[in-house]
């Protein structure tokens, strides 16, 4: 379709009149952002129609959900909820990042540490850690510590394993190169292995943050009704469905925006071979 249009442009001869579909196609090819707009519009209209039918009494329209969201932003409940939710999330991720990267790097560098710890983290990553979240309330009650621990439980294994794999799979050719120039073991680690592993380690951090979001929501829904989890539970209990949906959608959007931002950062600064100048 587009190739025939281009041919017409080049030769200056328009044999067949350009129809609407072709025009749209060209516009979409020229501006990829239009696809995102169309994609969003499609889902939101489907949501609106499903809410208007309604497919369930517990299914508000898109517009009602947006209105509820705006209301909660304006009266400050949203900000307060996120203030409570982001604390354990940031704290948990920071702790997981520091310990996870250190443990992962040590496992990648030392065969003894690998033997001792890799199986544990392999089990923890493949296993449904969510089952253990209720346990933390026994020890730490329902405060910030419990929520932070829930985040760590879900985020730490994936960060550890990614750092470990990144270090283990550091480019052997670069390591041989460093040896051939008589680099010491320390130089090899600092100047070759860590920089070579950092993109994968960062990607692991990103996955850890995604897991952390799941963990904090689980903790708030399951053990400590505070923050965004409380917004969801409360509005559900009073059948305020538009508000409940707005809270759920907001946490999904926040997590998506965070992760997309991190991915962009990763491409921009950590992977020079993929960077566009």
């Amino acid at each position, binding site marked *: 379709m587009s190739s025939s249009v281009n041919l017409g442009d080049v030769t200056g001869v328009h044999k067949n009149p350009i129809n609407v579909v072709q025009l749209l196609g060209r516009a979409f090819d020229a501006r990829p952002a239009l696809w995102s707009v169309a994609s969003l519009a499609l889902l939101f209209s489907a949501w609106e129609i499903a809410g208007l039918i309604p497919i369930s009494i517990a299914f508000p329209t898109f517009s009602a959900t947006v209105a509820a969201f705006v209301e909660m932003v304006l009266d400050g409940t949203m900000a307060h909820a996120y203030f409570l939710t982001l604390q354990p999330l940031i704290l948990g991720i920071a702790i997981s990042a520091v310990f996870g990267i250190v443990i992962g790097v040590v496992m990648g560098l030392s065969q003894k540490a690998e033997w001792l710890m890799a199986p544990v983290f392999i089990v923890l990553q493949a296993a449904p850690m969510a089952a253990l979240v209720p346990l933390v309330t026994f020890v730490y009650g329902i405060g910030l510590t419990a929520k932070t621990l829930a985040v760590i439980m879900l985020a730490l294994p994936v960060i550890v394993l990614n750092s470990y794999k990144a270090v283990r799979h550091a480019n052997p050719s670069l390591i*041989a190169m460093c040896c*051939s*120039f008589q680099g010491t073991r320390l130089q090899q680690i600092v100047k070759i292995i860590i920089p070579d592993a950092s993109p994968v380690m960062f990607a692991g951090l990103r996955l850890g943050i995604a897991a952390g979001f799941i963990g904090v929501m689980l903790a708030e829904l399951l053990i400590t009704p505070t923050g965004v989890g409380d917004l969801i539970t409360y509005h559900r209990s009073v059948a305020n469905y538009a508000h409940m949906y707005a809270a759920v959608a907001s946490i999904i959007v926040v997590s998506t925006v965070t992760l997309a931002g991190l991915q962009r950062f990763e491409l921009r600064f950590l992977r020079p071979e993929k960077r566009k100048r």
Partner: protein
Amino acid sequence: MPQAVRSHVHIDAAATSDDPVVEVRGVSKTYADVEALRNIDLDFARGKLTTLLGPSGCGKTTLLKIIAGLIPASSGEVRVNGRVVTGPGPERAFVFQDFALMPWATVMRNVAFGLELRGVSPAERRRVAMQYIEKVGLAGFEDKYPHELSGGMRQRVGIARAFAVNADVLLLDEPFSAVDEQNRRKFQEDLLRLIEIEKKTFIFVTHSIEEAVYVSDRIVLLSPRPGRVSQVIDPDIDRSASPDDIRRAPAYLDTVEEIWDGLRQYAD
């Protein structure tokens, strides 16, 4: 093996020279149960370019890495300037087949990496690196990253890095195998010019007969499985001639033909 032995061909000889910089004595290498090299005896003359040539699987890269100290020999020893090799040393520098450039570092930092590891001051290593970046023809590219360069340019970075540490012996592991044909020819010519200026010893691994004959003072033919020295050839070629004349010279063509006769039996 050809029976008509010409004056410059030694067979199964531990080729000796007056001033060997690298001496390989009875080196064997066995991986698990595969015998890669058997009892290699070789001398590499100072200031000359010696090529290890052979079909794939003859252990030529293994031998080069043993000389580099990157992998240990199963038996036998390698001496460089009279000292037994136990690992990599400052008198040897290696050029890698896959370039082994750090993707996160600029051309400048890559070339200066050997000096950086030795703790040379930033200003000094910048000066030395710049000098070799210019010599390999990459002036103006010092702030580029490897992914912004073509394959041939990347290997020039690898060669500049090896030159920058001022080693006596340069070990080149199929340096042009990932470079396309046109660039490879240009590269070979540039290499010959660099060799003339730098006066270093080169040990060069390749599987290209033409490349070996074109650049080498001496060619060591290895036979495969296990790798042994099957023939040593000193091409009798006038290097002062122009590249085109060399490639048309009867001596060049005859040597290529002769080596091909020796290797033909190993082709699959």
